[in-house]
């Protein structure tokens, strides 16, 4: 029996779900392998009570999210976190860990009624065991398909843990630091093929800080290139505000 699949979103802009719809060449093949029970962006029904695989986008920012995520984990045999928000807290995570009410107030005015049950944002694995990770903002559809293949074959998660520089070298891209410019590729998890840098844009760290990243050395490198270490830490807040970054 084909695995029953749901796609749902917590706090995010649905960009990764849009990426799934962008898999025009492969989408019909993928849909032939699963029973699509619910897709928040693309189907009109409600979330069914039972399913096998849950693809979850977005960060946890409300108590309702926490409860929903708990139910998802109890129900699904496999949970896949897609996108920066679900994997590192991503953009919602910029609000940080401190003075949540003050920051909501700065945007929505005093005592805002938005986001009932709001809480400091966190990635999925702060609450539940996540079986597979597809990082990035947005996700790369090729990588998503490779992960889905591993899910269907019952292989373990294999998210790359090296940093971006090897990809950049392979692309023969000139290092941004050689030009005195900041790039977060020094510490960011590889796997996207260093696409942004090959298009002339510095890495912004959307795939999260690599587990073995050497932040202390990266800061020294930035300083040698004329970039203040604080600028690197600031840039890391875009996607990695919730990751412990020891100075």
């Amino acid at each position, binding site marked *: 029996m084909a695995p029953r699949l749901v796609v749902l979103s917590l706090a995010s802009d649905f960009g990764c779900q849009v990426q799934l719809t962008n898999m025009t060449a492969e989408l019909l093949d993928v849909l032939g*392998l699963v029973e699509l029970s619910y897709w928040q962006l693309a189907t009109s029904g409600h979330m069914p009570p039972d399913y096998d695989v849950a693809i979850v986008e977005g960060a946890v920012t409300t108590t309702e999210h926490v409860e929903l995520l708990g139910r998802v984990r109890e129900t699904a045999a496999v949970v896949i976190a897609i996108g920066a928000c679900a994997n590192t807290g991503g953009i919602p995570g910029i609000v940080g860990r401190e003075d949540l009410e003050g920051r909501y107030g700065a945007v929505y005015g005093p005592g805002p009624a938005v986001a009932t049950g709001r809480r400091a944002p966190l990635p999925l694995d702060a609450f539940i065991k996540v079986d597979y990770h597809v990082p990035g903002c947005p996700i790369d559809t090729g990588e998503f*398909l*490779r992960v889905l*293949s591993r899910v269907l074959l019952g292989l373990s998660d294999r998210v*790359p843990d090296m940093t971006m520089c090897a990809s950049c070298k392979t692309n023969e891209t*000139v290092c941004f630091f050689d030009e005195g410019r900041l790039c977060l590729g020094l510490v960011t998890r590889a796997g996207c093929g260093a696409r942004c840098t090959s298009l002339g844009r510095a890495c912004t760290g959307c795939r999260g800080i690599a587990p*073995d990243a050497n932040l202390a050395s990266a800061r020294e490198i930035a300083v040698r290139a004329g970039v203040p270490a604080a600028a690197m830490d600031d840039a890391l807040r875009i996607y990695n505000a919730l990751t412990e970054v020891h100075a």
Partner: protein
Amino acid sequence: MFFRVIPKSVIPDLVRGLAEQYEVVGPVAKGETFVYAPLADAADLRLDYDTTALPAKRWFFPESEALMRFRVSDNAVVSESLDTAPRVLFGLHPCDVNSLLLMDNVFLGETPDPYYKARRDNTLVVGVSCTPGEYCFCDAWGTDETHWGFDIFLSDIGDDYYASIRSVMGADLVDRYVPCRAITDEDTAAFQRRTAEFKAAFTNGVDTSQLPVLLDAKFDSEIWDKLGEKCLGCGACSMVCPTCYCFDVHDELDADQLGGTRVRTWDSCQFKQFAAVAHGQNFRDTRAARVKYRYYHKQWGYLSKFERVLCVGCGRCTRACKAEINPPRVVRALQTGVVD
């Protein structure tokens, strides 16, 4: 080996002639750097290049290559891909020519690698002399000269090249496509003068005295910890290295999961996953251990098997490593006991 004098002015004619039968790959400008790329026009060839971002190895051992297509239902190999396109690599410096010989030891040894061999068998190599750059230290390993591993080697003697012809194919190409003449004693004297100037121009003195002894005697030295503190573990050094040959092989299934491709990609001993084995064990789980391993393998492990170090002094890793870890510095640390 025999020799011809070829005027520099006819090199574009030679390239155009070769292009009738071969894909001609040579150094071309890419922004502020140079890369080996197929020549769209003979005029794009830049024999005045200093170094290329990636070495020539990718034309024999690409960063990512499909080895075969397979069918899932019965595990059948549907097709194998061997790249047999006739190709000329035009304009390799002595370091890069030498690097191919070191790669050959690995890929063409007891069990030849069919993918590498197919490309090697179908690729001609034309070398060209160079001027030592800021990061070059090929003189440390004797890889500043090359006497085999090429079909033609062009040594700059002013308005002409002093061409060493190493193969029948090289002789055939020179005769067919360009006017050339036999060498005179004056030409050889000019060649010797250029060689002396070249040898005197190196600035990165690397004291390789007793290096294998030092590597073993200083196995537990704190220099490795110091280097490990700096290392980013990024593997940039391996990617740009003309003699790093480690690879990973994995299967990529098609979206319908009915067929797939077996893919080989470059790997690096500097990646933490490189030495990860079953049960979550990792026998080189610190950056210090991985940096040490890299230098042990290149300067001692390979040497003990093939009687050459696995480095040609091209300086690409010096340029690539933002943490400033490079062979001259590591060898200095081994000699002095401190990382400067």
